[in-house]
């Protein structure tokens, strides 16, 4: 692998951009393919390029069926953004949830403008921001590999996050709160013109495991997010 290819893959991962590396296994010749460009010493037929680009969305890596087997065999490695969980509200459950989601392979960011909550002492090793949720979500971006989890119980924090997430491409939206709290939340979001989208919100949040402790609720949330993430693939 050439130095430029290594740098571009690392850069695409940092910037959450999808990229496919196609390698000829006979000699290691490579090219990098994204939606608009193809770059590198290996040239592809139109058919091979189309097949490589089809992997940008799915994130699946595979040998290209449009290439010959054997010496001309081409392997396409898709690099897609890793799943990410944005947590609004640096509350007690968030302390446990941030660790569990990290262990489950999610990039995690905890968002809370209240510095006493989002402190490194309470969240060692966790990516924190003290921006307001609308600022943070605007900066971080709401792509289709992102889950938004609102835990603060405070409409001043949760509502702006939900208002941005509902019309976005995020694959999961969940909000903590009792049924009564959620009913009030739905009224506010309907009043904000989001009535057709509020059905996207998972509330009560998490799979119904029957648990009550913060750790048990965190397991239920991570499990539900994983389930929703793969539902599309199950058809």
């Amino acid at each position: 692998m050439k130095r430029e290819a290594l740098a571009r893959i690392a850069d695409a991962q940092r910037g959450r951009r999808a990229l496919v590396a196609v390698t000829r296994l006979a000699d290691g010749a490579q090219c990098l393919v994204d939606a608009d460009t193809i770059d590198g010493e290996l040239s592809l037929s139109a058919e091979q390029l189309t097949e490589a680009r089809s992997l940008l969305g799915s994130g699946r890596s595979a040998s290209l069926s449009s290439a010959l087997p054997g010496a001309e065999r081409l392997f396409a490695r898709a690099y897609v953004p890793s799943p990410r969980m944005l947590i609004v509200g640096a509350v007690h459950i968030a302390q446990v949830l941030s660790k569990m989601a990290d262990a489950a392979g999610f990039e995690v960011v905890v968002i809370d403008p209240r510095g006493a909550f989002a402190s490194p002492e309470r969240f060692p090793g966790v990516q924190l921001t003290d921006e307001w949720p609308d600022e943070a979500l605007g900066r971080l971006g709401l792509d289709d590999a992102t889950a938004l989890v609102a835990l603060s119980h405070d409409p001043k924090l949760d509502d702006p996050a939900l208002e941005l997430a509902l019309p976005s491409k995020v694959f999961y939206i969940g909000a903590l709160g009792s049924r009564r709290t959620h009913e009030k939340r739905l009224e506010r979001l309907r009043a904000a013109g989001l009535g057709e989208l509020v059905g996207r919100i998972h509330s009560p949040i998490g799979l119904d495991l029957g648990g009550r402790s913060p750790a048990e609720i965190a397991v239920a949330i991570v499990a539900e997010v994983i389930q929703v993430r793969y539902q599309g693939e199950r058809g």
Partner: protein
Amino acid sequence: MHPDTDSLFETLQQWRAAGKAAALATVVSTWGSSPRPEGSHLAVDEAGHFVGSVSGGCIEGAVIEAAAQVMASGRPRLLEFGVSDEQAWHVGLACGGRVQVFVEPVE
């Protein structure tokens, strides 16, 4: 970017920036109950330090050994592992699957 699963390319860049030789291994075919899917990576430096994984742990040692040869020759290699594989790289996968692993030098 996830700090564990996506940092492999940053680690490779750090090794190269420090002047260390490095190789990148990739699972390119799987048959049967292989533990890691196609596209799984393992990166190795010249001292045998590695990050990532290409199996449940059963073939890592052999891949690291091959990576040292790839770093020395500068040429990629295609390795195959499996229970029924009688070739030089026979190690046997405990899980009963077969995998092909491509190992390439990193410039």
